[in-house]
C-alpha cells in the first residue's frame, strides 16, 4: 500500500508516452489530467534462503525461481477478489544458520507477508516453521527434504519437493532391482541430512531382506576414509550407499577404488553433482545417485526459457520448486478471492496445480503427493538421468521425456509469454496502464 507515491508519476509518464504514440493507445485514451486508476494492492510474499555462505549459489537459485514467478504474475496482471493486485517479493538471507533463520522469519512476519517460500536447509526450515505457524502464515519449502518438517502437526507447513524418506526408498529400490545385493553397507556423514537419508535407505534394504552392515560414519569434513573402507572391504558388501555431500563423497569413492573395493557405490542428492567427477577422477564413472524431484532438464521448457531470459543463467537445482511454490500461493489466493492467510489456507491445502516440476497436490501433512525421484549415473564427467521413480514405479528417463513430450504435443500449444523485461518493478505498473 505504500507504492502509490512511486506508481503515480510513473503512470502519468506512461500515459504521456501512450499519448505520444497514439496509435497503440487503448480505445478511450484516459486524459492525462484524469486521476490514475486506483493503484493495485501490494501483496508481500517472502522468500528466505542462504544468500551468503557455503551454498549461497543454491540460495540465489531458489530466490530467482521465486522472483521469476512473482514477476511473471505481475506482468500478466492478477486479480484477487475482483481487485487488481501487485506482488512483491521480500527476499532475505538466513545464512543457513538456524539462529539467523528464526530472526529473519520474525522480520518477515513483522513486515506482514501473507505467505513464505523457503527456507532452503531443513535445519533452518524446522525452527522457522514454528514462527510461521504462530503467525498463521503459510510456508512452502522448495528444497527442505527432512521428513520432520511436515511431521510437526503444523497446518501451514507445506513442501513441493520430495522427502528424504521418499528419496531413500527410491534409490534403495533401484539398487534392489538393478544390483540385487545380498549384503550392503551404508555410510553417512553424521549430519541431519546424511543420517536421515541413510536411515531410509537402510530400512528399505532391510525390509527387502538385504543384510545391512553396521553403520559407518565420518563427518562433513572427513577427507580420510581409508580406515572405514578397509573395514568394509573385509565384509565384502555387494553395494554401498553414502548419505553425504560431494565434498566428502568424492574422496570416499576415490579411496574405495584405490583399496580395491569393486562394489557399486550410490549416493543421495548431496553427492549427485558433476563435482564428483572432479574429486574422484575416473573412479566416479558408473556411480549411481538420486535427486528429489525431476531433474532441471525435465522441467517445463517455458520455465527454463523464462529463467534464462530473466537471469541470463540456467536454473541450478531447486529453482523450479520455489517457482511452483510462489505460483501455488498465488493460485490459492485467486481461488479464495482473498490474500488473507486464514482465508486462502484451505484452498492451498486442496490445490491441484500444473507446475514447472509437474503436477502438485498436497497430502494431509502438507507433503507433495507422488513426488518424483530421479536416478542418475556418471558418464564422462557428467551426471546423466537414468530413470524416474514415481509411486514405487521406475520409468526409464527417455520414456519419461517421450511421454512428457507427447502430452505436451497433445495439449493445445501454449505460446510462451514474452519474458518480462529486466527492470520488471518499473515495467509492471506501466504495463498495467497499457491494459
Amino acid at each position, binding site marked *: 500500500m505504500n507504492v502509490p507515491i512511486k506508481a503515480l508519476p510513473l503512470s502519468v509518464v506512461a500515459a504521456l508516452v501512450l499519448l505520444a504514440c497514439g496509435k497503440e493507445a487503448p480505445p478511450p485514451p484516459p486524459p492525462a489530467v484524469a486521476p490514475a486508476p486506483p493503484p493495485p494492492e501490494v501483496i508481500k510474499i517472502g522468500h528466505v534462503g542462504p544468500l551468503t555462505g557455503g551454498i*549461497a549459489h543454491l540460495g540465489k537459485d531458489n530466490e530467482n525461481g521465486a522472483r521469476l514467478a512473482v514477476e511473471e504474475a505481475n506482468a500478466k496482471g492478477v486479480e484477487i477478489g475482483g481487485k487488481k493486485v501487485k506482488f512483491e517479493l521480500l527476499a532475505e538471507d538466513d545464512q543457513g544458520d*538456524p*539462529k539467523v533463520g528464526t*530472526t529473519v522469519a520474525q*522480520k518477515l512476519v513483522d513486515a506482514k507477508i501473507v505467505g513464505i517460500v523457503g527456507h532452503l536447509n531443513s535445519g533452518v526450515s524446522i*525452527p522457522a516453521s514454528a514462527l510461521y505457524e504462530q503467525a498463521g502464515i503459510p510456508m512452502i519449502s522448495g528444497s527442505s527434504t527432512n521428513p520432520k518438517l511436515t511431521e*510437526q502437526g503444523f497446518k501451514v507447513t507445506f513442501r513441493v519437493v520430495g522427502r528424504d524418506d521418499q528419496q531413500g526408498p527410491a534409490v534403495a529400490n533401484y539398487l534392489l532391482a538393478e544390483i540385487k545385493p545380498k549384503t550392503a553397507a551404508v555410510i553417512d556423514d*553424521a549430519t541431519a541430512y546424511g543420517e536421515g537419508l541413510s536411515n531410509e535407505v537402510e530400512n528399505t534394504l532391510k525390509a527387502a531382506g538385504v543384510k545391512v552392515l553396521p553403520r559407518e560414519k565420518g563427518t562433513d569434513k572427513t577427507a580420510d576414509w581409508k580406515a572405514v573402507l578397509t573395514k568394509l572391504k573385509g565384509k565384502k558388501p555387494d553395494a554401498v550407499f553414502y548419505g553425504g555431500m560431494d565434498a566428502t563423497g568424492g574422496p570416499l569413492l576415490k579411496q574405495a577404488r584405490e583399496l580395491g573395493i569393486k562394489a557399486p557405490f550410490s549416493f543421495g542428492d548431496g553427492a549427485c553433482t558433476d563435482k564428483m567427477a572432479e574429486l574422484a577422477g575416473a573412479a566416479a564413472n558408473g556411480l549411481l545417485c538420486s535427486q528429489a524431484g525431476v531433474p532441471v532438464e525435465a522441467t517445463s521448457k517455458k520455465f527454463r526459457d523464462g529463467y534464462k531470459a530473466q537471469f541470463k543463467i540456467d536454473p541450478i537445482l531447486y529453482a523450479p520448486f520455489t517457482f511452483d511454490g510462489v505460483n501455488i500461493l498465488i493460485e490459492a489466493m485467486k481461488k479464495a478471492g482473498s490474500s488473507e492467510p486464514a482465508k486462502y489456507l484451505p484452498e492451498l491445502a486442496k490445490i491441484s496445480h500444473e507446475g514447472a516440476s509437474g503436477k502438485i497436490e498436497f497430502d494431509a501433512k502438507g507433503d507433495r503427493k507422488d513426488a518424483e525421484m530421479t536416478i542418475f549415473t556418471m558418464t564422462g564427467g557428467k551426471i546423466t538421468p537414468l530413470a524416474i521413480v514415481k509411486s514405487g514405479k521406475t520409468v526409464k528417463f527417455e520414456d519419461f521425456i517421450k511421454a512428457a513430450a507427447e502430452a505436451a504435443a497433445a495439449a493445445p500449444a501454449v505460446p510462451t509469454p514474452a519474458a518480462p523485461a529486466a527492470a520488471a518493478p518499473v515495467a509492471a505498473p506501466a504495463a498495467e496502464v497499457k491494459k
Partner: protein
Amino acid sequence: MSQANKYYSGLAVLILSLLVLPFALSAAGTAWVRITNLAILFVFLSLGLNIVVGFAGLLDLGYVAFYAVGAYVYALLASPHFGLHLPFWMILPIGAGLAALFGVLLGTPTLKLRGDYLAIVTLGFGEIVRIFLNNLSQPINITNGPRGITLIDPVRLGSISFGRSDQFFGLVLSGPMKYYYLLLLLLSLVIVVNLRLQNSRIGRAWEAIREDEMAARAIGINTTRIKLLAFAMGASFGGVAGGMFSAIQGFISPESFVLTESVMILSMVVLGGMGNIWGVVAGAVLLSFVPEMLRYTVVPLQMTLFSRIVIEPEVIRLLLFGLALVLMMRFRPAGLWPLRARQREFHKQAAIK
C-alpha cells in the same frame, strides 16, 4: 548521601529504560526483541566463561559444551521426544546442576595441567561432548543425533505461554517480549551473584590462583577445590543459558554447539576485559549486535557501490573478530574496560619491558 542518591537515581533510570526497551524495539520490529534476547544469552555465557578465564585464569576453549548440556537437558525434558513436559523452573536448575557436574568432570583430570595444555584438553572436551550429542541416536535414540530435537516447549507460567502474545492491563506482550523480561530477571540475578563472588573469599582465592598458583597454595588456599568451583560455577551459567536457548528457539541440534561458538564467547570476554564484569557485559552486547549492524550496513553499501556483494557480511564479521582479538592483545591486552588490578599488572609488564 548525595553520592548515594546519584547512584540510586542512575540505577532507577537504567532499570526503567531496560524495562521500556522492548516496546521501543518492537516499534522497529519484533525481530529486534529476538536479537536482543539472543544478545542477553551471550551475556550469560560470557559471564560464565569469565569466571573460569577472567577470575581464575584458566583458559577454557570448550565452554560451549556446558551450553549444549543445558540446552539438551531442557529439550529432552520438555518436548515430545521423550513425551516429558516438565515446567521450566524445574528444568533450569537441573540443567545448571548437570552442567556444573560436567564442569567438575572436565576440571578433575585437568587440575595439574596449565595454560596451553589445559586449552587443548578443554577444546577436546568440547568436541567430545558435541560428537556424543551428534551420535547418541544409535543404538538407542537419546539425543536424536544430528537431526536435533523439535517442538521444544516454550516457557510456561501458569496459563501464560511465552510462545504467543498476550494482553496484560491493555499492553500487548509478544512472546519474545515476555522472554526478554524473564531473561532480564535471570541476568540481574547472575550479575548480582557475579559481583558478590568477585569480592568474596572465593573471588580473592581465584585471583590468587590466577596470579600465582604456587603462592596461592603456600598461603593455604585449597587450589583443587577452588579451581573445581570455578569450573562448576562457570558451567552452571552456561547450563542456564542453554536451557533458555532451547525454550526460545524451539529446536536445537548439535550444529549450534561448535568450536566457533566457544571462540566467539571467548572473544566477548577478551574484548570486554577479562575479569571485569561490566566490561564482559559490554563486550558481549557489542559483539552480539555487530553482525546485525553489518547486515544492515555492509550489504546495502556494497550493493550500491558494486551492485553485488563483494565481501559477505559473515566474512567481514569473522575478519573483524579475528582482527579485534589480535589488536586487543597488542594495544589493550586488558580489554576495552579492563579490571583495575589487571591494568596494573599489564602496566608493570610494560614497565619491565
